[in-house]
């Protein structure tokens, strides 16, 4: 580094300070200001007097306290279920010779692209007690009377199930990746010392994977805690609120932002506390990957169990993927959503209605794809900049940036929505009603994950390569452009796609921040849900998925060609 700085004497002035100031200011606008207003409101009366009254209401009024308890019980259940499903599946995919394991991985990723609220609507079509397709099938087979149901999605259990369907992929990815990276030597040593396959799994693999699983449990807990869409769709018909739907309902006229802010604080505090816990758990994971160069993990032979294993994996995948999409397709093209598609019930009405009659469709599509592209590009660049500064310790204060870039992880979407609403419905920055406020919200929400992805990518590019460039006389920017950027290209494209998908499926912040002119697809679907227009919902959901998939495929085409080089160099 020293050699680099002396080799470039013509640099007139240090750009790092203004960059730091700009980035810090940006993060303040995105995070500090909204959270500050949230605090102010939580401790204020309607007239702006300081008070603790909002919290008294929160903890004494059963209409607030019950949702708090319900939310916690949902989160715990989801967390347990997700681990119970994702751990064996992750193990099957990463450590055994189960056939189709690549396909299973891809399909799990595909279920992550599905917005949870779309999944919840699809599960209504499948498991509403009377009209649900699965219940109809069951009655057909068992001959049960018309008012008996096998499944009832409008229950606490139903909601837990629907949330788990779209949360387990997070745990699965964590577990599968950890098992991929786990050195095979340790297991080899175990078998050399005479332990059988199962003993090795039990004594070596499981303990090594345990910290990851705990981290996964926390991720699932947080997802369930902060989810808005699925509860809004399933809990209200079932006759209960979760904390997020309760916060949302406080924006009904007359809006009670003070109470909403107060109700948002437990979510915020709990999330921060759990993330600290997660950091502690993950911090200890280090021993699993120590040990220099190691061989690819040894695959366990399943023998006769190979096909039952695939069957299990595909069954699990049918819950977030095959069944819901079949239900959406059925609804999109049939006259009555509860009837199976036949030549007689086939109709294009929903398609025609959605694209030719519904006047919100096109604006919502435009807004969504504009915002997703802008967020992915700007958010990606911001994350890249921060990741670079932090990874190369390029300036004083890089730790603050790292903290700020990770902080939004602790802010639930609906809480951020409330905070941004409070901060930007007033001068000097009256952004409410513009796409800008949504852009800020989405960049903020996506920043932590993007930063983490790019940060680890930077760590894989050794600074030697950049230093070599600078010693040969290139500026820092030139080095970045000619050396670092090509090496990071595939990671950057992956991050871009990740943000894009995240924005398309975002509902919880958007539902607080949208206005009629800035409606996005997720909010439009949510509005259509209110009036029960499931046909249009099915068409829009499928459109959303198809367009997202196309974007991802194109982005990967662009990025795919360079992936190999980056591996070699890294």
């Amino acid at each position: 580094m020293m050699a680099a700085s002396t080799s470039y004497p013509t640099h007139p002035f240090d750009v790092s300070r203004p960059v730091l100031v700009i980035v810090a200011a940006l993060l303040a606008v995105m995070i500090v200001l909204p959270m500050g207003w949230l605090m102010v409101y939580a401790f204020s009366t309607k007239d702006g007097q300081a008070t603790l009254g909002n919290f008294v209401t929160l903890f004494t009024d059963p209409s607030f306290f019950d949702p708090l308890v319900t939310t916690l019980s949902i989160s715990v259940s989801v967390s347990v279920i997700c681990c119970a499903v994702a751990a064996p599946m992750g193990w099957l995919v990463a450590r055994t010779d189960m056939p189709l394991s690549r396909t299973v991985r891809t399909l799990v990723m595909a279920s992550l692209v599905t917005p949870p609220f779309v999944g919840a609507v699809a599960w209504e079509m499948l498991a509403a007690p009377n009209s649900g397709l699965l219940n109809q099938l069951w009655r057909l087979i068992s001959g049960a009377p018309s008012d008996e149901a096998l499944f009832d999605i409008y229950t606490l259990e139903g909601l837990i199930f629907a949330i788990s369907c779209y949360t387990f992929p997070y745990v699965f990815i964590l577990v599968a990746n950890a098992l991929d990276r786990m050195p095979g030597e340790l297991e080899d040593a175990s078998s050399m010392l005479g332990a059988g396959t199962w003993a090795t799994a039990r004594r070596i693999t499981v303990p090594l994977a345990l910290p990851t699983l705990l981290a996964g449990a926390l991720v699932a807990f947080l997802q369930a805690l902060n989810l808005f869409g699925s509860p809004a769709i399933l809990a209200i018909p079932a006759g209960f609120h979760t904390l997020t739907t309760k916060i949302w309902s406080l924006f009904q006229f007359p809006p009670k932002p003070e109470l909403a802010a107060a109700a948002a604080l437990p979510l915020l505090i709990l999330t921060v506390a759990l993330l600290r816990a997660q950091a502690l758990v993950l911090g200890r994971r280090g021993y699993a990957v120590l040990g220099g160069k190691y061989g690819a993990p040894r695959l366990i032979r399943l023998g006769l169990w190979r096909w039952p294993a695939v069957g299990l994996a595909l069954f699990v995948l049918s819950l977030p993927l095959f069944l819901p999409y079949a239900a959406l397709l059925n609804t999109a093209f049939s006259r009555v959503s509860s009837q199976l598609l036949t030549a007689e019930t086939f109709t294009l009405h929903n398609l025609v209605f959605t694209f030719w009659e519904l006047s919100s469709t096109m604006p919502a599509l435009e807004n969504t794809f504009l915002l997703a592209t802008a967020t992915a590009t700007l958010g990606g660049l911001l994350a890249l900049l921060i990741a670079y500064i932090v990874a190369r310790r390029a300036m004083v204060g890089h730790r603050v940036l790292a903290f700020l870039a990770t902080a939004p992880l602790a802010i639930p979407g609906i809480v951020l929505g409330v905070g941004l609403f409070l901060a930007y419905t007033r001068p000097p920055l009256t952004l409410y009603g513009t796409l800008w406020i949504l852009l800020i919200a989405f960049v903020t929400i996506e920043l932590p994950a993007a930063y983490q992805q790019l940060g680890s990518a930077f760590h894989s590019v050794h600074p030697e390569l950049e230093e070599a460039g600078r010693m040969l006389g290139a500026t820092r920017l030139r080095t970045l452009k000619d050396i670092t950027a090509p090496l990071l290209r595939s990671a950057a494209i992956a991050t871009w796609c990740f943000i894009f998908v995240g924005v398309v499926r975002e509902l919880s912040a958007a539902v607080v921040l949208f206005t009629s002119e800035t409606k996005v697809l997720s909010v439009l679907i949510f509005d259509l849900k209110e009036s029960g227009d499931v046909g249009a919902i099915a068409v829009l959901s499928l459109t959303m998925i198809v367009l997202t998939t196309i974007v991802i495929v194109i982005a990967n085409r662009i990025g795919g060609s360079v992936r190999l080089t980056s591996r070699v160099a890294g």
Partner: protein
Amino acid sequence: MASYRTFGRRALLAGPLLLPLGARVVSAAPAATPVTPALVDAATKEGKVTYYTAMDLSVAEPMAKAFEARYPGIKVTVERSGAERVFSRIGQEMGSRIYRVDVVNSSDAAHFIYWKRQEWLAPFVSTEMARDLPAEMVDADGMFCNQRTHLSTIAYNSRLISPEDAPKGFMDLLQPKYRGKLVKGHPGYSGTIMTATQQISRELGWSYFEKLAKQKVLQVQSATEPPKRLEAGERAVAVDGSDYLFWMARERGLPIEVVLAVEGTPQISNPMGVFKTAPNPNAARLLVSWIMSAEGQSFIVNLSGQYAANRQVKPKPGRPLLSQVKTFKEDPAAVEQQADQIKAQYAKYFKV
């Protein structure tokens, strides 16, 4: 543009749709505005109009398309959600000085009392409206008019329940045999249900709702959803919901029967007005005048069979005449005063 078409239709007897919209019958109404070519030109120049409504999209969007066909070059954006959400949305937007709404139409007439008091509405009465609307259909100061009237009725799916087993009125719904078979809209989202809840709680007492809440009711939001749940066969009986959607489903051949409760049926007027801050004031006025014209009103009636405000328009054949339905009296002023209390009381029983 050609001058506005006048209608030579027979003046038909409009039902006595006496609605408590205008507080004062003898009014200081603004002078009626003719729809001149100049207005049409100005509206076309604006090129667009945003229409906030609670009417089901299956009626609102085709109506918007009919207007677009009648006045080419003006695009209508329909912003539909439950009336209570429309109300919150407008409150939020106006509070943040976001002026998006041109024309608003709500199924909770109380909203117009509030908006009028806030001085958010602009007076507008077209010559045709002045001529063809009964006085009680127009606000005394011309700030709004009743676009149409509908009912919130009980209905059932006759594939799931036989006519003998069907409820005859609200009190029947409390019988154990309907437990788990009911679907109902929510007054916190739907103006129709808010209006109906005020009327039913006044006529039957809150104890009715307290008992109803114990019937394992499927709670949906908008009054436009119970008809769709009934269609899908998700529940056998709808406790409430927009009657026109039950009828439209029935007319499409679905097994749905409408029940006019023995106790009486909640009646819901749907006022419409132009906002003072409308970004497209001319297109807004043109849209209102068209919707209230015999042409616009006939379009709504032919498609959905709701009860027209315009006395030139005949009711849809096959539907009960409004004058023959035993309806509860509408009281928007009471709804305006009690709305918060109604939502709280309702949430106490139904938990959401």
